């Protein structure tokens, strides 16, 4: 008797379990397959450029000599964007989550989210037509007063279409990503820990430093990495804003180039080996992004013991 009632099962529930686990597995496999497919495509298409004799590649000195200046350019633009956007984004997120009155907070959050909805070509047009023109006097000032620093070496670009302008435009574009993710995480800080800090006699800022920021650190790292992903891969804004050229240390002269913009500007007219070269550049960008994400994972896992997840 007992055995029969135990072996009988409600089939509908079981079927639901199977369908769900199957769907989840399929989705997971699909992601891996797509990623692998993209990687395979990039590698296969890039091989001709990687094995071609150096004089056939653009510039005549081989693929490596072609790619490294634009890798550096890409990293410079992304780093500028993050250096500007991260503190602002965390500040705005903290203001929304812990300081602003409730009515203002939701309005401000909405406006920030709206920034993410603007197409990147609009940012590019704004950067090229407005920001570059308005900011060039500041570049002159930097060249005159801070010119002894290699990064502010003059003469400043008259048009303002420099890597620094591109970085500033990128920072505005990654701001909403970092802000909204950080805000969500700040809001999830357990009330228990905030009250623990306050009950010890912490001011609001001390409470944030003691309870909120440590709790949110892995989330902030992830948010910054997502922002970095966008900054590294952004194409249109950089292509429109930057007056590209050879690699230069100065951020306020025209010059430098990013991988994504290089591909976008050259791909339409490319053929033969040139296509392979650009795809190989894409492969390099892919590897950089992968590396950045792995470093981010490593940073997060290093603090796992103290994350509060246990």
């Amino acid at each position, binding site marked *: 008797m007992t055995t029969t009632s135990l072996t009988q099962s409600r089939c509908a529930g079981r079927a639901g379990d199977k369908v769900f686990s199957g769907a989840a597995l399929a989705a997971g496999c699909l992601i891996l397959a797509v990623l692998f497919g993209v990687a395979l495509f990039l590698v296969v298409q890039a091989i001709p450029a990687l094995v071609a004799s150096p004089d056939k590649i653009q510039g005549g000195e081989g693929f490596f000599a072609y790619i490294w200046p634009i890798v550096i350019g890409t990293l410079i633009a992304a780093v500028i964007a993050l250096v500007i956007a991260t503190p602002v984004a965390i500040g705005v997120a903290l203001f929304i989550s812990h300081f602003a009155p409730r009515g203002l907070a939701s309005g401000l959050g909405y406006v920030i989210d709206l920034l993410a909805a603007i197409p990147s070509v609009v940012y590019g047009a704004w950067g090229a037509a407005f920001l570059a023109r308005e900011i060039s006097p500041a570049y002159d000032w930097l060249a005159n007063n801070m010119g002894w620093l290699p990064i502010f070496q003059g003469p400043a670009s008259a048009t303002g279409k420099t890597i620094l302008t591109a970085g500033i435009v990128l920072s505005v574009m990654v701001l909403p990503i970092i802000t909204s993710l950080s805000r969500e995480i700040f809001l999830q800080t357990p009330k*228990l*820990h*905030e*009250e623990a800090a306050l009950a*010890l*006699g912490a*001011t609001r800022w001390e409470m944030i430093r003691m309870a909120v920021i440590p*709790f949110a650190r892995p989330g902030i790292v992830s948010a910054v990495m997502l922002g970095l992903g966008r900054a590294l891969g952004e194409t249109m804004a950089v292509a429109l804003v930057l007056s590209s050229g050879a690699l230069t240390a100065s951020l306020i002269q025209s010059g430098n180039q990013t991988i994504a913009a290089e591909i976008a500007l050259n791909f339409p007219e490319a053929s033969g080996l040139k296509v392979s070269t650009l795809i190989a550049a894409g492969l390099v960008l892919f590897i950089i992004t992968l590396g950045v994400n792995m470093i981010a994972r490593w940073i997060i896992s290093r603090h796992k013991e103290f*994350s509060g997840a246990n």
Partner: protein
Amino acid sequence: MSKRIDVKDLNVYYGKFLAVEDVSINIEAKSVTAFIGPSGCGKSTFLRTLNRMHEVIPGARVEGEVLLDGDNLYGQGVDPVTVRSQIGMVFQRPNPFPTMSIRDNVLAGVRLNNHKISKGEADALVERSLQGANLWNEVKDRLAKPGSGLSGGQQQRLCIARAIAVEPQVILMDEPCSALDPISTLAIEDLINDLKDQYTVVIVTHNMQQAARVSDRTAFFNIAGTGKPGKLIEVGDTHTIFSNPTQKATEDYVSGRFG
């Protein structure tokens, strides 16, 4: 290192809602005072007004006076941050900071306000506080490990160590044992007994046996019905409250006959 608290005609509001009505009570220094009463009667709310922690909830406010050795906590120009550094609190659920080691948890309050202490002083303080919380022997070999790795009872004693490390005048405990097993509860009760030699202790508890075991004086709170404000019915020596209360409601509650 301990002060008395005198509460005069205190009303507690959440926005327009009157949560606790007209409480006047004297809490003696170096004694344990227990607040008992049914759920929702406002005893926790009232406890949180004693170190201005209720202000964390938007719209919460009070009328009346809370005097710490004669100084009104709600007087003009009194900073709630200063109040809370003198009146510590232990919460219902153990809440050590998960991102800090055991040692850093104990030092968390001391390091506030950019207060700098030398490593030697810090070591001594950590040992003294953990010993004061009866936790030193259990954790002395793993002070650098995260506090969240301890058992629930150990975490709660860590929170008590953290509270006494700042040398407060008063320690408030909001149902400190309700999430703990009986053995951990016993450890905390023993600790409360030791603490009253140095501190004024106020404890909210659901457990009447616990109130009878640990407290010198007991205050009984009650509520007339949902939506009505909680009131202080009676306060007196614990022995009197449990054996010979003056109010019928108190007698019904402590003898297990409700309503």
